[in-house]
């Protein structure tokens, strides 16, 4: 059997970085191949070579046995390669349908045939369980649904080689399962699939073979996954043994710091009840579009609460802006979208961390010397072990894991009493993930009331004390966490599907 794709000795340098150094990979048709590695290991660069975004400086790419040199992604698409990249590639103002069929818009007498657009889009959305109107503009969708639209778009190209870069990063296990079923079907039809994920459980569940990159080189090239266990793979990825997160002992005490009583919001939440006490980690779990991030935004004053009551220390309060939430009630929110909402990428590490404390450290007449900022920030950069050459480094130049640490650090610096953390470890390398989990335990142990939003079920079960399950902008149940993965997973799914069945 000829291999679908063979890459031999690929190297690629960017100014100052050797992103890939003599990397090889072979991918057979009818095979799901995992591409693994820490952030910065070179996975994205390799993918961009396969999909025609970058050209390698050295090495060969054989597609179906013949050498290829793509000048653009369009050429790669024409040769039957389609990809779901980590960065979103959708046009926000276009509809879901238009985005899905963008590469070959159906035309009739020179005009776009919108009936056909809708129909084609539905055909590729249905297997993914994506039940939305194809006319909806993409910008109105949640991150998770955008991800599913990206996947539908890749599928619509009828590719023989499908590249998926972190396709499950922002979707729930339920959707992941649907996706995996679909991928297995495609594999059985002879499609070659390259699958990138940080979630090793998924890799072992889905993939047949594996290539691991470390520092731009092969730690292993195209070997069967059989015979390897999780520890082996982690060792290949990070070059040493995996640590597990240390849990700090703690007990939740006293009255709720923050409580929602029968809250409704302009975003569509109804009758939401939720409490969190000092030293407690409350999880918010739900499917795509369940309204978790939106609820967080309503709590911090970025969206309006229209009915019910928000209580801080038992007293009803109105939080009309994030500034009020921060300065008066000391509530903070770590965004799921660090590039657009969490960080000011072009600004320095120092500015990004200090933004929440500026008001506190400013002196008379609003004078805010750099020195005061540096003194306020340094302890947190040290504590979170942010790897940066200096505090003046633009955040855009840090790795993903370090960016996430900066995004979290500013809220720790703010010394908030209630911290809402939204998908803290999406697209983060293993070591940073373990570190962030330990940090969340530590924060709670020090008396912070934590609300954790996560679609990563193992993360949720290892961190939360209680899990509030959300569905369709309501809290449909609350479960005490006994840290048993199987039992908790079933209990959560039962809550969600009971509601889905009832409506």
């Amino acid at each position, binding site marked *: 059997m000829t291999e679908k794709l063979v890459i031999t000795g690929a190297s690629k340098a960017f100014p100052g970085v050797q992103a890939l150094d003599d990397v090889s990979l072979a991918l057979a048709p009818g095979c799901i191949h995992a591409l693994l590695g820490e952030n910065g290991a070179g996975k994205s660069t390799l993918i961009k070579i396969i999909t025609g975004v970058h050209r390698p400086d050295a090495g060969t790419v054989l597609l179906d046995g013949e050498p290829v040199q793509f000048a653009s992604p369009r050429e790669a698409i024409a040769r039957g390669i389609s990809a779901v990249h980590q960065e979103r590639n959708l046009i926000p103002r276009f509809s879901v349908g238009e985005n899905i069929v963008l590469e070959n818009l159906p035309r009739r007498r020179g005009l776009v045939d919108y009936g056909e657009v809708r129909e084609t889009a539905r055909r590729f959305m249905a297997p993914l369980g994506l039940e939305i109107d194809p006319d909806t503009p993409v910008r109105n969708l949640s991150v998770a649904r955008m991800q599913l639209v990206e996947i539908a778009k890749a599928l619509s190209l009828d590719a023989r080689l499908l590249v998926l870069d972190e396709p499950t990063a922002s979707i729930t296990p339920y959707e992941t399962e649907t996706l995996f079923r679909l991928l297995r079907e495609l594999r059985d039809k002879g499609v070659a699939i390259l699958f990138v994920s940080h979630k090793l459980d998924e890799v072992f569940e889905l993939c047949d073979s594996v290539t691991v990159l470390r520092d731009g080189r092969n730690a292993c090239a195209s070997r069967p996954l059989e015979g390897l266990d999780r520890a082996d793979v982690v060792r290949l990825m990070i070059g040493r043994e995996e640590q597990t997160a240390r849990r700090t002992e703690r007990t939740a005490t006293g009255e709720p710091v923050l409580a929602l009583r029968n809250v409704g919001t302009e975003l569509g939440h109804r009758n939401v009840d939720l409490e969190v006490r000092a030293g407690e980690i409350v999880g918010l779990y739900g499917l795509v579009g369940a309204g978790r991030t939106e609820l967080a935004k309503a709590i911090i004053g970025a969206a309006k609460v229209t009915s019910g009551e928000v209580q801080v220390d038992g007293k009803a309060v109105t939080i009309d802006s994030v500034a009020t939430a921060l300065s008066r009630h000391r509530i903070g929110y770590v965004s799921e979208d660090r590039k657009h909402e969490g960080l000011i990428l072009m600004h320095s590490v120092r500015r990004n961390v200090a*933004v929440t404390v500026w008001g506190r450290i400013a002196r008379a007449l609003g004078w805010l010397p750099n020195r005061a900022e540096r003194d306020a920030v340094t302890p947190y950069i040290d504590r979170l072990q942010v790897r940066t050459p200096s505090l003046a480094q633009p955040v855009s130049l840090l790795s993903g894991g370090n960016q996430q640490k900066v995004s979290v650090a500013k809220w720790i610096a703010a010394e908030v009493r209630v911290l809402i953390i939204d998908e803290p470890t999406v697209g983060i390398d293993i070591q940073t993930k373990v570190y962030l989990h330990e940090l969340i335990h530590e924060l709670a142990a020090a008396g912070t009331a934590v609300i954790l939003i996560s679609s990563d079920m193992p993360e949720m079960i290892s961190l939360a004390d209680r899990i509030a399950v959300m569905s369709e902008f309501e809290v449909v149940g609350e479960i005490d966490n006994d840290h048993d993965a199987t039992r908790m997973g079933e209990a959560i799914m039962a809550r969600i599907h009971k509601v889905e069945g009832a409506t």
Partner: protein
Amino acid sequence: MSMKVVDGRAGPRGPTLALLASSEAGLLLITVGFVILFSYLTPGFSSPFNTYALTRVLAIDVVIGFSMMVVLVTGGLNLAVGAIGVCAVMVGGWAMEVAGLPILVAVVLALASGAALGALNGILTVAMRVHSFVVTLATMSLFFGAMIVMTKAQAFNALPAAFVSLAKLKTYFFASSMLYISIGIGVLLWWLFHHTLIGRQILAAGANTSAARLSGVPVERTIVVCHALSGALAAFAGLMLTARNGAALPSMAGQLGMDWLLPAFLAPVLGGTLLTGGTLSVAGTFLGAAMVTVLSNGLLQLELGEFWVQAFLGIILLVAVALDRLRAHLMAKRRI
């Protein structure tokens, strides 16, 4: 690993990027080059009289550039700089000539009315949630029209001698004293943007509105503050121009105040203030204005017609915008 990547990227690419991204050094070189070239080509260029005239124009154009810069940094723009400048000056002229108020009071009144008109722009931008382009296009027409109606297009040309003489002082190297005032304003702005709470909030809101808002920055307030500041600076530039002209003229910035728009955009954009907001260079704006002033003065000395000079300035603006895009592209590329 990440450490190595970061260091590597900053290293070899650093010098070229730094030069392009912080265009101050490049601008300084080009400006000095033009000064030498024009001094060589025409004896009139380096004459004491011309140096004085040139620095007087420069002093005003710098402040006009600042007036636009402080709004560009929010990611917006202010088309009404000229209109606000003229309106404020007519208030000041009226206060001095008709109401007979002391010069200082009249100046404060003029600055306050400029700030108030600017603040109105800011409030409308925030309240209507539209780009400041639309708001300031409308208010440019509104402010100018209202000013013409109220003044019946009459100038105030009997201003106190003490006020007019402010513009006539010469100092070292035959430079106008007004240039030092402009430099002083620049230092204050630099301090404001880099060493105060509101300055940092403005830069944060300009660079990434949603991230700033979700970090507790009062984004709306920063926009209103920037527009008010822009109005006050436009008023200041207007007062300097009035002192130079010896009269408060409704026509001093052209129809609708539009004569100011070219210098207003040229100085900051050449100087490295990104049109997308979030970063600014006070020194760059100063040098940008210097380059434009030297170039147009030199070309006029060479007896190239006024309209040729206008055409040249248009080309320079296009080049500056292309540089702006290149800079933004390079900044984005650094985070592959």
